[in-house]
């Protein structure tokens, strides 16, 4: 009996000893990359910039920035490691930026490593940069570091603002699906400060066009359930801002005269937060009708625009495919730009703030 346990103990000891020699990653001897940015250089090379914070004292950090050009992301990482004082690792990656030129060529080969590497989470934020990502990353002077700064910038706009939900999971699965076209937030450096300037629309993995910020809200309402958004209405007599917009969308697919017709219904519940002009509460009904009409009209315009660009980020094809058994991909793609898509709005103005 005793001999048996001695053998077991020996095995365990050998095992521990051998695996003890496994390459280790001690926190003081690594740099955790928080942001990576990729710029287009020419047909087969990209410029990669990574930012890794290093901590000085309690609460103070300095972003170390490394940049070089290469043809593949890992080749780039290899070159950057030759500059870095400690080895660069991906475990804390929060944001990956691509510049617009690179996005126009197609992003699928650059996001492959993000999906393949098990140490990268799928809640990673992606964004498109107008201009150079290198310039943007070197100009961010935030106390919390570029990585946390950028991911907070994107995330709070998704949670409380008008930006539709987007992260690596959503983007990569939409690229893979071949039926929905993805979108990403687009960021631009303005007076040395990064600012979200709209929504980048993609055809599969290639950047096509950009949606201006005032249409992004509408896009979000048409795209998903909205919890807390804001919307502005400007007329000749008064301006009004509505907030705490709760909206749900419902989509119906109908067949009319042998043609498919898609109908979006938006159910919006909102509170007035700012009102300039006369009348106030008395005009509640009018304001309500105004909003209702305007949202429907602008939504239809937005969808028309998307149809003209032949992109489908709202997932119309996905809805048709899932509801309608006679779906045929080729036929759908031919008819999509001319398809009749309507938007109905059911608007409820539940509160008018604290004034009449």
């Amino acid at each position, binding site marked *: 009996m005793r001999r048996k346990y001695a053998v077991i103990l020996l095995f365990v000891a050998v095992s521990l000893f051998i695996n003890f020699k496994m390459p280790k990653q001690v926190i003081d001897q690594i740099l955790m990359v928080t942001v990576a940015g990729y710029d287009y250089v020419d047909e087969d090379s990209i410029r990669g910039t990574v930012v890794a914070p290093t901590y000085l004292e309690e609460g103070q950090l300095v972003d170390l920035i490394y940049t070089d050009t290469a043809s593949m992301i890992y080749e780039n990482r290899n070159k950057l490691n030759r500059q870095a004082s400690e080895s660069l690792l991906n475990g804390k990656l929060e944001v990956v930026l691509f510049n617009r030129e690179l996005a126009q060529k197609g992003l699928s080969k650059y996001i492959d490593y993000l999906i393949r590497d098990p140490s990268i*989470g799928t809640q990673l934020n992606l964004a498109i940069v107008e201009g150079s990502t290198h310039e943007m990353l070197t100009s961010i002077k935030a106390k919390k570091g570029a990585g946390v700064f950028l991911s907070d910038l994107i995330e709070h706009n998704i949670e409380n603002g008008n930006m539709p939900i987007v992260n690596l999971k959503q983007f990569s*699965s939409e690229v893979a699906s071949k039926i929905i076209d993805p979108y990403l937030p687009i960021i631009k450096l303005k007076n040395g400060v990064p600012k979200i300037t709209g929504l980048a629309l993609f055809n599969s993995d290639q950047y096509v066009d950009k949606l201006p910020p005032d249409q992004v809200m509408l896009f979000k309402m048409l795209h998903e359930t909205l919890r807390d958004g804001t919307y502005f209405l400007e007329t000749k007599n008064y301006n009004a801002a509505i907030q705490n917009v709760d909206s749900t969308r419902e989509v119906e697919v109908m067949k009319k005269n042998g043609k498919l017709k898609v109908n979006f219904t938006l159910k919006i519940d909102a509170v007035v937060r700012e009102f300039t002009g006369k009348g106030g509460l008395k005009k509640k009904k009018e304001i309500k009708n105004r909003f209702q009409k305007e949202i429907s009209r602008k939504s239809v315009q937005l969808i028309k625009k998307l149809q003209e660009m032949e992109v489908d980020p709202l997932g119309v094809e996905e809805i048709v495919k899932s509801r309608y058994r006679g779906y045929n991909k080729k036929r759908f793609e031919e008819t999509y730009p001319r398809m009749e898509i309507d938007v109905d709005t059911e608007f409820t103005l539940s509160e008018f703030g604290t004034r009449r």
Partner: protein
Amino acid sequence: MIGAKDSVSSLMVFILITASQVGVGVLGFQSYIIKYAGHDAWMSLPIAGAGISFIIMIMYAMLNHDEQGDIVSIHSFALGKWIGTVCTTLFAVYLLTMAVVVMRTYLEIIQVWMFPHMSLWAVLLFILPLVFYIIGGEFRIVVGVSFFGVVYPSLLILSFFFPLQYARMSNIMPFFDHSIIEIIQSSSLAILNFMGFVTLLVFYPFIQKAQHSQKFAHYGNLYTTLFYTFVCFISFVYYNQAELKEIIWATLGLWKIIELPILARFEYFGIATLFFSILPNIALYTWACGRTLSRQFQISQRKISYVLLAIIFISCLFFDDRAEIGVLNDLTGKVGSYFLFIYIPILFLLHWIRRRVKKHAS
């Protein structure tokens, strides 16, 4: 004979069946069951579960009427001494292969997700003594480990609610877009995940009032079927079909979306917890293999266990890349479904005929 000290209560059949059915398969079965039925393939899991329940029924009908109530005596009774011995040996080889598959797949996952530099043989030296400790003693220890193998990983069910925030129902709509035939074809691929319950043919004599334990076996199977269907459903609404075709371990991918303040990568926690589910799998397979061989050839089970663990050790080192492990997985899956749905019913018929003949003769 098996003493009262070594037998377990019939309720434990539930634990044994469940523990043996949930293993490495749960980490990646989603991507191969879509081969025939596409987005309808999640429906093939309840069908597979129903099929398994039917097989469990046949097994019990056979075991209840056998003198000793295990595969060795069934084989020798139904097939005669020589063919019986050959079949029993093949069955034992199959069990051992399953143990190797489970072990190697789990180690592969550790290599890919956690420690790429891990030395395989050294880790095996760590795990195999543990397996030996479990199977070297009484059967009750195996049951005890199985109990934890069911209880601990069941907490992971909660983690599958996280990915639901990215669920798209349209990924699995419209329902019944594929024919029933295709769904059944897919369910034949899903069977592999449930294979562990064949050890019932070996541990049956260890159960007190074994004849009345059948309902617990069905409950155990029901639990795993529901569990698999749940995981599959979540993955099917989370991934679209194009993604499922590309991904190797869909379940681990589900965990990639979870980010907790204290734990950036939930997979590490998940993979570690799944060890509780892998261990009873390996232990049960190895134990069943050893038990079968020791019954057949009248050698002490402890001595056989040494040899079996050595074989597992060597074969795990022998398969060293994804493609080979994949081939091994496919092969055991195919053999397994033939074994269950063709061999077991035939064996049942032969056993039944022999019983009839013997009854008439006496």
